[in-house]
């Protein structure tokens, strides 16, 4: 029973494509965000209402976080990806609190996909910002001997990104499930509170690490030290 609760279940099949509950929940989150975006867009005005004020506050906070780390000319280019990452991971983490639903981030396939996107995004923005040649040059600097270590670093940090989020969220849901089975109704409430905190923290860490990787790609030398130290701290 526990295995069925923790694993990804196939909820539908579109031709040869099997749709798991992870993908279905993701679609639900996408629908929610789409509706929210359309609602805000529809009600957008110079004198903001409460919802618009909330959205503006969130976007302003994300924008300021990006301004502190990224070069000024890259902020607008990177903001949609990082902001979506933060919002999606946070929402996906918190979805597990709803009875009958599971966090998509407790599925290694989903976190791996996000980590792969971060990996690709860091190179995409790096190439766009500095050019193909300049972007890949820093892998052989100061010596070509460091190239394998750079490649290992890239792979390991991407894996770490995927596994960290997956491990935290899966263990959280597993612990909540075990307590619920053993202790009964209402007892796991404090654990659910911990779930909220952990969900926020893991979303923040994931988004911040993605931001740091992208910033490192944009300013390789300047941010290399910051990236490593931040990763160690989060670990």
């Amino acid at each position: 029973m526990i295995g069925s609760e923790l694993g990804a279940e196939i909820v539908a099949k579109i031709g040869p494509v099997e749709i798991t509950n992870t993908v279905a929940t993701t679609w639900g989150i996408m629908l929610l965000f789409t509706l929210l975006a359309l609602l805000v867009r529809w009600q957008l005005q110079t004198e903001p209402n409460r919802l618009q004020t909330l959205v503006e506050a969130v976007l302003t906070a994300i924008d300021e976080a990006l301004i502190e780390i990224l070069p000024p000319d890259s902020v607008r280019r990177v903001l949609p990806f990082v902001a979506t990452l933060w919002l999606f991971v946070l929402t996906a983490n918190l979805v597990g609190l709803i009875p009958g639903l599971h966090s998509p981030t407790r599925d290694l396939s989903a976190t791996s996909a996000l980590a792969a996107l971060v990996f690709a995004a860091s190179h995409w923005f790096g190439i766009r910002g500095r050019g193909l040649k300049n972007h890949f040059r820093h892998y052989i600097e100061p010596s070509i001997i460091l190239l394998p270590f750079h490649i290992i670093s890239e792979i390991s940090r991407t894996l770490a990104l995927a596994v960290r989020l997956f491990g935290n969220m899966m263990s959280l849901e597993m612990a909540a499930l075990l307590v619920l089975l053993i202790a009964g109704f209402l007892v796991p409430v404090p654990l659910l509170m911990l779930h909220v905190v952990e969900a926020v923290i893991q979303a923040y860490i994931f988004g911040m690490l993605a931001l740091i990787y992208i910033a490192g790609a944009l300013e390789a030398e300047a941010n290399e030290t910051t990236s490593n130290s931040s990763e160690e701290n989060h670990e």
Partner: protein
Amino acid sequence: MQLDWTTFILEILNFLVLVWILKRFLYRPVLDLLATRQQKLSDAAEHAQKMCEEAEALRLQYESRLADWQRECENNRRQLHEELALTRTREMDNLKKALAAEEEKLRARNEKLLASRESVLARSAVDKAYEQAAAMLNRMASPQLTQKIVDIFLEDLAALNETDQSALRKAAASLSADSLAAVVSAHPLDQDLQAAIRKALSGAAGQDIDLDSAFSEDPSLIAGIRTIVGECQMHANLADELAFFKRQANHAK
């Protein structure tokens, strides 16, 4: 814990679609609105700053003009005070001069009036003195006094200086029938005295002068005689002496 590649690929696609949707319908409109609002705030702040600078410039201009105006007022006031002081000094000098002139004129007029009054008084006093002296001498007059005065006349005639003697001789030489010699006395003269007068007069004139019908009396002479030889008159009487003194006193005044 297994990796489902279908889920992996679908999650990637889902996320990319979500990024596009949010970028298209949320981030861009909201960020554009924020940028517009920020631009408006910046414009408003810039406008306010510009207005503040203009107000400051106007304030400085106003203060400068006020200072200039006050300086000009002060200069005008000082100039006015100086002109007033100058005018006051000039008018005071003119007034002092006018007062001094008036005072001088008044003093001169007073002095003139005083002198005139003194002259009138002196003349009156002389007239009174003459009248009183004449009255007193009239009371004292007598034939003896006339004789005494004639004696003195004879002595003076004998001791006549050269100039008077020359004038007498010239007058005696020009005697004619129309202008005869005459002797007027206050009292009647006796024959001896008449002869002595004729003799002394002829001697002084250097020629014989006919005085036979020339003697007459005039009491107004008080005492003494008046001798007339042509154009030459010789006064030896109190009335003529008093008249002489009176003329001298009036002339001196």
